[in-house]
């Protein structure tokens, strides 16, 4: 008999799917209820995810067999430390963006689009949860598609987002095809789709060209999904032109989930052993990531549009994470920096997109950084939150970004990769410059001396509270990471994948 918590993984996905259809039906009766149903569902999911995390850490990995069919024949949901952690992150940020969406979506979308919006929103959350909890690679593909299709539609729900949504649709579908091809290849040589089963069947076949090709397909497919350089081209437009709440969820939660999916394939389907045998692969990933970091930072510096700037900054941060993944086999820290950065980046980038959305909420044309003059005084709390989060993003201690950098750096030194340490430093400087540029304009008073003090014109509380919460968290989390509170999650992840021990 399974304990209730062990049934939560499937419930997390199921209630989200159910609520999507509930919204569709109930929304016809009462439009206002959509948002509340969505928030309530995600809240329940979040509570469940905390229970799951607690269970995973105290009791052990959860295995749930769908329909009672034993794997590898049936679909299995496996929740270990890594996906329990990712589940909490993604649901927390979904909750934040759902709360935030109430006012911002009413403002940005015509009222007849509200019901489909929340339906898709719930489907997106369901898809992300599904990707996270599943232990079956084909099932993962299905959920990735659910997640992506919901995201295409959400991005395009806005008129200006149409083109971006379409580009993403084309790119994303190609990515999905690659992923599916990879699965097909693996199935053809092993006859199995269960991740655990695959990881047992594959090692003797590592020399097989089909298996190797499948890996490259996975890398390409998921590379598109997580906007890993040079496959990021859909991403800046998609992040910039989506409705604000959507920008938040896709930039913070969805990119985390995509990176998670890659980690899962890399370490649970293929294993650490595979990376050690084909070491150039890790090197290639690291170098691509290093280029991504510099490229993202330079392009972010060149943007005049705040949301695009943040989008390129995301390209850079995906680079950070992948760089950490690339060196993980040769350092005693293992995956720690990468796993840590998932949370840190989600919090900080989520907050910054919330703020970008807040500015657009107040004045629809407020895209251009050069028009931000005086915002610091007009929206003092939002702008203060921007400064704090931006400082956390730069290397100002003890913000979350600083801690990530610290760990990354130590990982590189440990791995003897000094060139990557230099890359990181260079990128920090560029980060400082592009955020600083915005802050300077927001608070500078040059040339407007004659104007009187602008009136304070803040966003509504339901938007402001998420902003302030995330801004505070991006510092608190940083401080917590710094302290010597034992992190069972990180250790569990490393020991699970056999990392953290340098031979």
């Amino acid at each position, binding site marked *: 008999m399974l304990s209730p918590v062990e049934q939560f993984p499937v419930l997390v996905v199921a209630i989200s799917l159910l609520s999507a259809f509930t919204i569709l039906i109930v929304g016809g009766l009462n439009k206002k209820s959509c948002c509340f149903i969505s928030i309530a569902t995600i809240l329940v999911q979040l509570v469940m995810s905390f229970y799951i995390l607690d269970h995973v850490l105290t009791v052990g990995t959860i295995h749930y067999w769908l329909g009672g069919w034993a794997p590898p024949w049936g679909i299995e949901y496996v929740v270990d430390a890594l996906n329990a952690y990712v589940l909490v992150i993604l649901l927390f940020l979904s909750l934040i963006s759902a709360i935030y969406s109430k006012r911002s979506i009413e403002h940005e979308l015509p009222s007849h689009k509200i019901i489909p919006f929340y339906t898709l929103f719930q489907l997106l959350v369901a898809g992300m949860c599904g990707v996270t909890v599943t232990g079956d690679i084909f099932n993962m593909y299905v959920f990735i598609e659910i997640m992506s299709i919901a995201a295409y539609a959400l991005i395009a729900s806005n008129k200006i987002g149409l083109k971006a949504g379409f580009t993403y649709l084309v790119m994303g579908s190609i990515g999905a095809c690659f992923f599916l091809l990879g699965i097909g290849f693996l199935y053809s040589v092993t006859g199995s789709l269960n991740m655990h089963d695959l990881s047992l069947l594959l090692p003797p076949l590592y020399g097989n060209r089909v298996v190797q090709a499948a890996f490259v397909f996975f890398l390409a497919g998921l590379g598109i999904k997580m906007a890993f350089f040079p496959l990021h081209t859909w991403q800046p437009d998609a992040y910039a032109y989506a409705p604000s709440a959507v920008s938040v969820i896709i930039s913070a939660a969805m990119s985390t989930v995509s990176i998670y999916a890659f980690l899962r394939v890399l370490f649970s389907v293929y294993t650490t052993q595979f990376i050690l045998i084909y070491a150039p692969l890790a090197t290639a990933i690291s170098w691509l990531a290093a280029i991504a970091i510099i490229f993202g930072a330079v392009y972010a510096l060149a943007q005049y549009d705040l949301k695009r700037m943040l989008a390129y900054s995301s390209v850079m941060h995906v680079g950070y994470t992948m760089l950490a993944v690339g060196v993980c086999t040769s350092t005693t820290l293992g995956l720690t920096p990468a796993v840590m950065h998932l949370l840190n980046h989600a919090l900080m980038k989520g907050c910054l997109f919330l703020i970008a959305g807040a500015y657009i909420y107040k004045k629809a044309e407020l895209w251009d950084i050069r028009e931000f003059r005086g915002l610091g005084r007009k929206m003092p709390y939002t702008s203060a939150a921007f400064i704090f989060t931006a*400082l956390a993003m*730069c*290397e*100002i*201690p*003890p913000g979350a970004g600083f801690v990530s*950098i*610290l760990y990354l*750096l*130590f990982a590189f*030194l*440990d791995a003897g990769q000094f060139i990557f*340490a230099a890359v990181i*430093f260079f990128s*920090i*400087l560029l980060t*400082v410059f592009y955020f*600083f540029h915005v802050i*300077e304009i927001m608070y*500078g*008073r*040059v*040339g407007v001396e004659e104007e009187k003090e602008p009136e304070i014109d803040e966003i509504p509380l339901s938007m402001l509270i998420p902003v302030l919460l995330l801004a505070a968290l991006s510092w608190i989390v940083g401080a917590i*990471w*710094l*302290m*010597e509170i034992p*992190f069972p999650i990180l250790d569990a992840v490393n020991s699970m994948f056999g990392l953290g021990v340098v031979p």
Partner: protein
Amino acid sequence: MMEESIVYSYRPLLAILCPATAAILILLSSKRPNVRESWTIIAGILQFALVASMIPTILNEGVIKCTFFPTMFEGIAFGFKVDAFGLIFALTASFLWILVSFYSIGYMRSLKEHAQTRYYFCFAIAIFGAIGVALSANLLSMFIFFEILTVSTYPLVIHDQSKEAISAGRKYFAYLLTAGVFLLFAIMMTYYLTGTTDFTNGGIKALAELGPAYKLTMVILFFCFLLGFMKAAWMPFHSWLPTAMIAPTPVSALLHAVAVVKAGVFGIVRIVCYIYGVDLMTSLGLGLALACIAGFTMIVANLFAIAQDNLKKRLAYSTINQLSYIILGAGLLTTEGIRGAMIHIPFHGFMKITLFLCAGAIMVATGKKNISEMGGVGKTMPVTMLAFTITAFGMCGIPPACGFISKWFLCQGALQAGEIVFLFVLLIASFLDVVYFFPIIHTAFFKKPEGVAEEVEVRVKEAPLFMLVPLSITAIFSVIFFLDFILGLNIISMYFYKLVEIAVGNVVP
């Protein structure tokens, strides 16, 4: 290197919390200026009392430790450790903060400056950072306070919010944050090489034991540290300091003569004496390199200073020069040299702050910023100019101000090291000090005001008392330090000599 008795106490933490709490209270009482300013004063006095209360323990050859929390990195705990050297810096900064707070009140209100709440808030945070740097137990904690210091002083630099101020702020940030990156790298590298970043008397053992294979690494690491301490304004990375003089004068006085730049040289001395250690520095030949950089800076900065007409800019270049005295002292790697370097930190602080406060007082009372306009100021502002003259003498190493003592030690250090070159560098630099300080004094006392043809009745018109009293106090202290050297009472000079004695005893075998 004697046995140290370790005392565990929360006093360092409390001392740090004073300005932090004050900062919050200042924000909360932004509508009532009197309440707001009194928070600053109360916090300043409390903080100084707390810092001073640590003196007896340190004099008993003890160190005060306060571990806040251990970090995830094994061997690095976020915490404070007060030793003699840290206490010297903390005493200087916290004592001068009280005086400058009074002065700020006079200055800001006389000039009716805008955004005063922001000003006091950032000031308090900056002091929080400076004291944090002084009391930190290891490099990582120090780095955190270092960055806080950088970020919090930025709004003070751009206080004017004119185009010029904004671009000065940009320069300030560009230099100091880049420095922060180098510092972070150096700290991580140190940790990677040795597994610790604690300040250890006589240097970290593990670093000294790395062996000849790591020689190049250690040299590169040292230069990374040096770049990281760009706050010390050594040449050619000095130009942020004169540019930052666009800030209000109290900021230039406390932050750009004491807190920020001293944090930089403090860091350098920490690296030389407590991370590398004198022996390792000698065997790597880094002391000589450091001394050369410092010597170059001293001479060139002084030549630059002569060319400045703006009083604050001239003082800024003088600061660059004097900071290099400290670096030079550390670079000589001799007992007397390090003693001179350490004692010059508080002494230069007291003297330079007086000079800046005088410059501010002149600006408030007469509106003059340039030296060429200052004819006759000595007659209208006798107290201010007297204070200025005494401390300017001190800067040049002439008694009765305390600059003489530190320079004496430094010269002895140069002799002890057997580097006659640096003795000459010191003497030439001191001579150049005279060259650029005496014209100011001469103009002030012996030239007639511009545009005044005939003799008019000279009326004394000093700056407000809020400004006059602090600058007199700092000037008097500069003399007291000198007198105390002869009398040996110690108490009136805040035990600086004793503390330096202990600090030198700690680091030099």
